[in-house]
């Protein structure tokens, strides 16, 4: 029954699409919707709504084929296998470089250079069937040997892949023939395939890998053209692309660090899209303007107050719970994200990238009197002073510090805020000496819950039971069992208030109204433009 309804809905959507694309007249669309059981007034309303929502015609423009996307952060290099900076993948992953798989807008794993794959019964052997007729941008033919080269190179610590740990479960990578890759894992790993969609897992050519930092060569729908440091990165269409040819001929990423300058650039028509939104509160101007579309991606990332579980007073669970109870998540989401975010209560965000998500927001609710009681029970009734390491380059961290400061003041906790640059944060908070009490950060990497199994990780959480459950969950091929194992971990983390998880922000983009097929950044940092076009 449900299936049939779904089919009918899909049929309606298809007819409306046809109408929008200009392939159907209004009359014909009305008739076809009638066949699908939609009443005449309803059908007219649907068609009218669609026609006003789009600009009567959604067909790709043949004259405007260059898209200029404003992004905040400039890549530090052009090689995602050498540097963890997210903006490298933002510009290049899936556009220039391709992996065997990629993550779609919702965070699901879909095939890329691998058109399909089989997993053995025990889950330990994965066989990929590669696309045919693939060529590198330098003209050389792509083969399975390139995959063997790329992944062997990535796994070898000597090559300094920032995510060499992704290949830890891999025992061997081999190419039985030119279009097949066989990977043997030490045991099934649920996260491994997911990670193969990341920038650090993209396939590079042995002939050009050494120069990828400045002149990237990939197999993707766009080729690298020029990189004007401090200004822009230009890509051009790869006319020899093996897959669906992109509709855009030219793509330019323009690096605009200042939120005002970004908005001005879009309003003045210098750019076609704001790919990364620095200040969501400024979106109101665009949301009410017909010339622009504000696009919202799935909530992804975990904005949280990380706590140093290793050192007093935060080694006391009651103190952590007290701090968490003083946090009103709504004030954060409204104050930082202008409402574009979803409250979270454990280390997971509600999207398909983290299929084990469970809503744990009811464990640590906003409750000032409970917070005070917990502090009193921990012997801190007379007040408490904590240090907050603030990453000054991240607007959410700066605003979050102000909000946290005022919320904690209400329960008698004083914050000493130390602003610092990201490199200093990495070297003092994240890496030893790990000298801090609290810090605010958005953990953007998906499926990073495994870090709670590492007692050396900067929040210093040491719980062998959780570590065991995490290992077991990753190696569990049965989806239901896996989910329940992860669910137990998420529950324990929330119960122990290891950190105070606040919200998962929606990734946002502002587009010119005639810019379509744009995949909002989110679960994957990549801004894939292979489907984008102007009408």
């Amino acid at each position: 029954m449900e299936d049939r309804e779904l089919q009918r809905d899909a049929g309606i959507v298809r007819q409306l699409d046809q109408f929008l694309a200009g392939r159907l007249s209004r009359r014909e669309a009305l008739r076809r919707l009638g066949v699908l059981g939609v009443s005449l007034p309803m059908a007219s309303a649907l068609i009218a709504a669609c026609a006003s929502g789009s600009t009567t015609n959604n067909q790709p423009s043949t004259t405007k084929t260059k898209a200029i996307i404003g992004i905040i952060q400039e890549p530090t290099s052009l090689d995602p296998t050498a540097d963890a900076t997210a903006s490298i993948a933002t510009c290049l992953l899936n556009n220039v470089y391709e992996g065997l798989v990629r993550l779609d807008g919702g965070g699901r794993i879909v095939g890329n250079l691998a058109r399909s794959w089989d997993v053995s019964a025990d889950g330990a052997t994965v066989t990929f069937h590669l696309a045919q007729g693939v060529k590198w941008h330098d003209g050389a033919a792509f083969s399975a040997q390139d995959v063997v080269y790329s992944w062997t190179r990535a796994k070898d610590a000597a090559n300094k892949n920032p995510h060499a740990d992704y290949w830890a479960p891999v025992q061997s990578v081999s190419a039985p023939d030119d279009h097949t890759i066989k990977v043997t894992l030490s045991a099934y790993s649920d996260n491994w395939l997911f990670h193969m969609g990341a920038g650090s897992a993209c396939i590079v050519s042995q002939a050009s890998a050494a120069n990828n930092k400045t002149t990237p060569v990939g197999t993707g729908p766009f080729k690298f053209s020029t990189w004007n440091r401090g200004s822009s990165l230009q890509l051009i269409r790869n006319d020899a692309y093996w897959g669906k040819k992109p509709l855009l001929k030219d793509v330019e990423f323009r690096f605009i660090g200042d939120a005002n300058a970004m908005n001005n650039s879009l309003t003045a028509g210098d750019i076609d899209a704001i790919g990364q939104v620095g200040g969501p509160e400024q979106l109101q101007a665009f949301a009410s303007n017909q010339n622009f579309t504000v696009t919202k991606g799935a909530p992804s990332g975990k904005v949280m107050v990380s706590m140093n579980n290793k050192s007093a007073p935060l080694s006391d669970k009651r103190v952590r719970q007290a701090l968490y109870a003083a946090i009103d998540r709504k004030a954060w989401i409204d104050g930082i994200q202008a409402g574009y975010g979803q409250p979270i209560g454990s280390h997971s965000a509600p999207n398909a990238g983290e299929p084990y998500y469970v809503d744990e927001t009811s464990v640590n609710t906003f409750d000032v009197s409970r917070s005070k009681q917990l502090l009193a029970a921990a012997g801190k009734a007379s007040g408490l002073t904590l240090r907050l390491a603030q990453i000054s380059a991240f607007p959410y961290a700066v605003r979050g510090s102000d909000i946290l400061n005022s919320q904690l003041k209400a329960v008698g906790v004083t914050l000493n805020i130390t602003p610092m640059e990201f490199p200093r944060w990495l070297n003092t908070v994240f890496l030893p000496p790990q000298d801090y009490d609290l810090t605010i950060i958005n953990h953007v990497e998906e499926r990073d819950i495994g870090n709670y199994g590492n007692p050396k990780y900067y929040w210093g959480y040491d719980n062998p039971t959780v570590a065991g459950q995490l290992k077991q969950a990753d190696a569990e091929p049965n989806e239901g069992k896996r989910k329940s194992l992860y669910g137990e971990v998420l529950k324990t983390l929330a119960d122990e208030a290891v950190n105070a998880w606040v919200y998962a922000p929606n990734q946002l983009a502002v587009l010119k109204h005639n810019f379509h097929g744009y995949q909002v950044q989110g679960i994957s940092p990549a801004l894939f433009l292979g489907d984008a076009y102007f009408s």
Partner: protein
Amino acid sequence: MTVAIATRLVALVASLVVASILVFVVVNLLPGDVATVMLGTNATPENVAALRHSLGLDQPLWLRYLQWAGGMLHGDFGTSVLSHTPVGPLILQKLTVSGPLALLAAAIALAVSVPTGVVAGVRYRRLSGAVLSALSLGGIAIPAFWAGLLLATVFAVKLRLFPAGGFIDWTEDPVAAARSLVLPAVALGLVQAAVLTRFIRSAIIDVQREDFIRTARAKGLTRWQALQRHGFRNAAIPVVTILGIQITSLLVGAIVIENVFVLPGLGRLLFQSVGNRDLIVVQDLVMLLTAVVLAVNFLVDLSYRLLDPRIRTAS
């Protein structure tokens, strides 16, 4: 005269050497390094140490200084650790943005401040002088970035006369490149003009109180004639000093304006490189700016000799 100039030159070279040591030490004292930036939140103490080793960051400080300073003497400014691009050509490319921007801003500053400063100085007891003086005070109070935002809103967003930001390379489209420098240069130039106006005004007021001006007036010259013949040249000395300082600050101080207008200049490169701990780029840039400051000071010193015969004969 030649001896005096030679002494100044030796001092210039010595200053450069001292500056290079200071720059290197201070830059390398910054907490955090490029290895952690490259590894991001996937860094572990072990992989950071390994990457530091392969980048040569674990070598002793003095050795790295010698490599850097020695390279510069050969015209080799090193290679960016992050992007693998040679730094020398990179800086040259940025200079094609920052250089014209600074010069254009300085020209605007001079064109505005010299007439207003002189008029405000000569008429400092009259209403017109007071109005100009008040305007220049207002100008000093306005930060360049705010002026930039205002200009962008009016001339780029509303009137669409100039681009709101970004830069198209000279080789691609020289007219577009020049157009994108207009608003930032005006924003920088006007604020500098305000500062310069104040100095020119007080220099003119001071010089009018000098004995030689009184004597000239007593001979029967008008106020203007006296100023033209004897006043301006004397008033120029403090003004040239300030101008020297301003030109260097235009080159560096454009950081904020470059961010407002998204210009790929030296300021933005410096800002990004500090954030990424791409220290070789930072060292080279700070060194370049130091050299410019020292060179400008040297030229200002020389100009004193041209302007004031008393300094010439004293040496």
